[in-house]
């Protein structure tokens, strides 16, 4: 029962949605509107579940003193304080919530993302080697595109570097991206069919 009822829900609703997309009829559009009303009602419960999950996970980490449990205290305090600031004073310009966003969230987020530049520089120095013909092509393409993306590249090598960059992005890059997209698309269709027909059941868990 624990597996067959969720499986039945997925298969029945899956086919109903296929029907909605492929059969433009009043019944299918009425069904979709009915579902959307349910969706609006269900979404807030998702937020409650998320908050409960964060509280339970971090409370357990603090209780069991797992490594770096102190960060869990920071997470919980930050969540409660930010939520309180939003509810108590609103989220507009000049409120404590906006102050927190500008002075905590923004610099921390930017710091995390900017680490990428340092790791790319380090990785390119340590690992980006012309070990084979393919690696050499990749390396040259990377250098040209990097130069074409910045004004100094055009100043040094003229506007021709821009044209070569555009060609690399518009021809070989585009061809490979399109190939990947087609492969992913076909894979998604195949997996969706397997789920609809009940062949693919790993999403239900249980180790099968």
């Amino acid at each position, binding site marked *: 029962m624990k597996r067959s009822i969720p499986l039945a829900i997925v298969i029945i609703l899956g086919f109903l949605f296929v029907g909605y997309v492929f059969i433009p009829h009043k019944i299918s559009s009425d069904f979709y509107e009915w579902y*959307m009303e349910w969706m609006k009602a269900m979404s807030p419960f998702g937020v409650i579940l998320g908050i409960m999950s964060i509280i339970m996970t971090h409370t357990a980490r603090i209780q069991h003193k797992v490594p770096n449990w102190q960060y869990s205290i920071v997470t919980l305090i930050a969540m409660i304080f930010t939520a309180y600031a939003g509810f108590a004073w609103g*989220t507009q310009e000049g409120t404590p919530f906006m102050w927190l966003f500008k002075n905590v969230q923004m610099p921390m987020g930017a710091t995390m993302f900017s680490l990428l530049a*340092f790791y790319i*520089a380090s990785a*390119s120095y340590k690992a980006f080697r012309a070990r084979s013909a393919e690696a050499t092509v990749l*390396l040259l393409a990377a250098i040209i595109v990097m130069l074409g993306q910045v*004004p100094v590249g*055009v100043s040094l090598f003229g506007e021709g570097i821009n044209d070569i960059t555009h060609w690399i992005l518009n021809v070989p890059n585009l061809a490979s991206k399109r190939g990947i997209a087609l492969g992913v698309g076909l894979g998604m269709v195949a997996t969706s069919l397997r789920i609809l027909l009940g062949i693919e059941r790993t999403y239900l868990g249980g180790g099968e």
Partner: protein
Amino acid sequence: MNIFERLQMLDRRWIFLVVAIAIIVPLIIPFNSKTYTTEPTEKLYRLIDSFAPGQDEKPIEKDRALLLVFTHDASTMSELFPMEVAILRHCFARKIKVFTLTFLPSAAPIMDYAINTVKEEFPEVKSGEHYVNFGYKIGALMLPIILGMGEDISEAVDIDAEGRKISSLPIMKNIKNYNEMNLIMDFSGSSAGGAWIVYARSKFGANVGAGVTAVMAADQYPYLQTGQLTGMLAGLKGAAEYEKLVDVFATNQDPAKREFSRELLKDTKYDDAITNPNIKTKFKQARIGMNAQSVAHIMIIVFILIGNIGYFITKYKQKQQG
């Protein structure tokens, strides 16, 4: 151990230090660099500019509008925020009707911040009349809202961030669905904007543009080639290009020069933006950042070259020895 072998073993903290200096110095010491505009940016600019009311037309009567969708959090703001500010500045300067929307709770403060940053310079611009912030809508409603706006925007979104009924706002005069709100611009550090291509573009024929981080730009080229994406702002470079276009045309003191023209773009007097005190820093953030990016790219290329020279010399010596 010779110099090349030592370089092969270089502690990566030295690389981090050099990169940090390469990025920080150009930000502290500003210098001018020419911004070259590309076709995907120009196409977006020209389409948005075509939504501006004519000289004898009241902005409120205009039957064209633009939707900006913020699909990113604070981590990608350094690349995407200058794009958002530049487009909002374009819209406010040319009195183009503009809406903002997000399905991410963490993007809601970014929308407020972007609008307030630009609005300071345009006191005549009013919420509900020139622009509306639809605010944050829960992600689960993304699909019904995208599809619903194809029929009636005021029904699909219902209320704005200030709790006002959309249908009662003056800006909605002559704006009903994607026929009028004819361009959706999605700012994202992922491929989240794909939903607009799949539903708003395919089903209703709306124009879709993308503002993406540089690492995601390569993924968007298939959509650009097919025309599913009208245009694209790619990373900080795209933002810098748009900033320049707004400076040269939309905010030009001479009304006769506000129409896009390639001849005017070639004028070198617009290349001093970074040191020009008349252009506020917040409106040239991307161009200032491009200087740092230029130096960082050159540094990375130098690192690659040194690493490879060391690799080949070490390999050559090993071959001779053994």
